[in-house]
């Protein structure tokens, strides 16, 4: 294990540097790195098999705490590493066959992957600041790769918000250092006290991270950035990058700053989440653009994650691990469900735009009415996003509903249940006319070459472009059959 952890961070970072230097060979370097990462992730998981309480602490250079930069692996970090790895590999496989992928993409995301892995493993506040800044810069550069009108402005807006969020985080780190003289999360958990400086530092850090997660009302940059980025970049940003800052809030809130949690902060987060669900769904319902619809739906889905965070932060919640069952990890399945579904939906949107050369929602009908696999992917994806039973999202959302009832917060049932209905409604804007049009296409008079009129077929695309999003979306349904963490460790 001691070799695997640094390998998971250093391999993509170094390979990313090479891929940026030798742009022509970028995709081959990425292929080799991707295979290497897959092997390492499998080895790491085999290593952890059956160990039970699998937790590891690894200090860089063998220095002692608190001076050393420590890396910490537990079940949550392990699951997140796997999720990031698998979604990255799937999206890179798609980008390989997408003719519009820029040469710069490979080096950028390899670097981003390394930064993300370092962020997941880090157990040191300043080290986390560096990784989140690195990830933020990669994310902005990914948006700026697009040549679409307004992409530079969207990237700029994203960069300003992201940097400001990082500065808030850094200020919080400075205050924590001034107070306790140490930055390692494990050590901080032992010394954190109730005083106004610590509360201020934690609130500032939380504010910065909320802006980076695009929590309502700090979400304004997300639909622009995710809507205008290139296809593969949109999928990576929506599926993974915003989850990084969410993961940090989770980590800090139940780790070093657990003692500071109170019902007020939980209530605030629940309110933000509720507003995010309503506002995000409303805007997704109104927007005329395909990718913006999916991006606004991300804003709404972040609302669910925030409500989950509110439940984790509420001191009344019952989160004790019993019989190897850790209820808080159910929130991870919500993250996983959103990451897999949203990656799939953005890739499908990319396919549609490749075929129709239009960003407008209404122009996509010409493809949808004649493309069964795309339609199936969209349909399965919409249901998975809404979190209906039999999907992975249902497990997480059921936990949210159960916990809010247990806490006596019955009003939370409204956003939690309505959110799913809204999801079906705005995704239905794409699906419902397609089903109608499909009948027209089947019975429409044929053209001279025997093809139905005004229907573009998905078969013009290379098959991996269709298969990757379908597999991503399908995995949300298949994983729901095995939601238990197979390591026998705490779930």
């Amino acid at each position, binding site marked *: 294990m001691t070799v695997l952890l640094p390998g998971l961070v250093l391999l993509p970072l170094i390979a990313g540097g090479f891929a940026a230097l030798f742009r022509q060979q970028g995709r081959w370097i990425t292929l080799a790195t991707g295979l290497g990462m897959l092997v390492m992730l499998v080895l790491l998981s085999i290593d952890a098999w059956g160990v039970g309480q699998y937790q590891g602490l690894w200090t860089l250079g063998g220095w002692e705490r608190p001076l050393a930069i420590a890396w910490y692996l537990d079940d949550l970090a392990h699951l997140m590493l796997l999720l990031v790895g698998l979604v990255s590999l799937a999206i890179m496989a798609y980008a390989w066959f997408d003719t519009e992928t820029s040469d710069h993409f490979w080096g950028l995301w390899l670097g981003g992957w390394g930064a993300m892995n370092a962020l997941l493993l880090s157990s040191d506040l300043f080290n986390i600041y*560096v990784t989140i800044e690195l990830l933020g*810069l990669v994310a902005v550069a990914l948006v700026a790769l697009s040549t679409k009108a307004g992409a*530079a402005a969207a990237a700029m807006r994203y960069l*300003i918000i992201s940097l400001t969020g990082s500065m808030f985080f850094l200020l919080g780190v400075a205050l924590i250092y001034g107070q306790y003289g140490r930055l390692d999360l494990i050590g901080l958990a032992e010394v954190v006290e109730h005083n106004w400086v610590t509360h201020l530092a934690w609130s500032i850090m939380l504010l910065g991270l909320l802006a980076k997660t695009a929590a309502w009302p700090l979400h304004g940059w997300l639909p622009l950035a995710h809507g205008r980025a290139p296809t593969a970049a949109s999928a990576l940003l929506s599926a993974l990058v915003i989850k990084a800052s969410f993961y940090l809030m989770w980590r800090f809130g139940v780790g070093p700053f657990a003692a500071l949690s109170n019902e007020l902060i939980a209530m605030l987060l629940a309110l933000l989440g509720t507003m995010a669900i309503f506002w995000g769904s409303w805007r997704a319902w109104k927007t005329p653009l395909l990718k913006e619809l999916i991006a606004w739906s991300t804003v709404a889905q972040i609302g669910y994650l925030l409500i989950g965070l509110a439940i984790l932060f509420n001191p009344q919640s019952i989160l004790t691990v019993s019989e190897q069952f850790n209820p808080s990890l159910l929130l991870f399945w919500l993250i996983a469900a959103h990451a897999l579904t949203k990656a799939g939906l953005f890739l499908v949107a990319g396919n549609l735009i490749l075929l129709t050369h239009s960003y407008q929602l209404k122009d996509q009908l010409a493809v949808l009415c004649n493309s069964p696999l795309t339609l199936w992917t969209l349909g399965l994806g919409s249901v998975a996003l809404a979190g209906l039973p039999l999907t992975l999202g249902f497990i997480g959302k059921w936990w949210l509903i159960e916990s809010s009832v247990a806490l006596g917060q019955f009003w939370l049932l409204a956003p939690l249940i309505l959110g799913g209905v809204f999801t079906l409604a705005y995704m239905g804007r794409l699906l419902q006319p397609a089903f109608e049009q499909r009948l027209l296409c089947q019975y429409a008079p044929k053209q001279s070459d025997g093809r139905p009129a005004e229907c573009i077929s998905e078969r013009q695309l290379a098959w991996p472009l269709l298969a990757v999003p379908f597999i991503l979306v399908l995995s949300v349904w298949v994983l729901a059959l095995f939601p238990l963490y197979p390591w026998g460790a705490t779930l």
Partner: protein
Amino acid sequence: MNEIAIYLITGSVLFCLGLWGVVMREHLLHKILGVNIMGSAAFMLFLAFAARAEPADAVPHALVLTGIVVAISAMALALALMKRVAKESEQHQATLEDSQ
């Protein structure tokens, strides 16, 4: 302790000043400089905390050096993007008015 208090107060004021610049100023260069001022404020706090110990604590110095490297890279990306925004906008202005 008094000298350190001066640095702490200056740092806090600088942070708010930088934030004001990011939020209120329209030109992108002002916004980028605002972010940089916020960063400098955080660094100043780090160094003020380091000066409390005798001899001065070395860890925050290392952190600030790392932070400066990160800030330079962020600045480079921000300036490059700003030039592209100005080039692509209709009035060749480096502002964010055009996005919805």
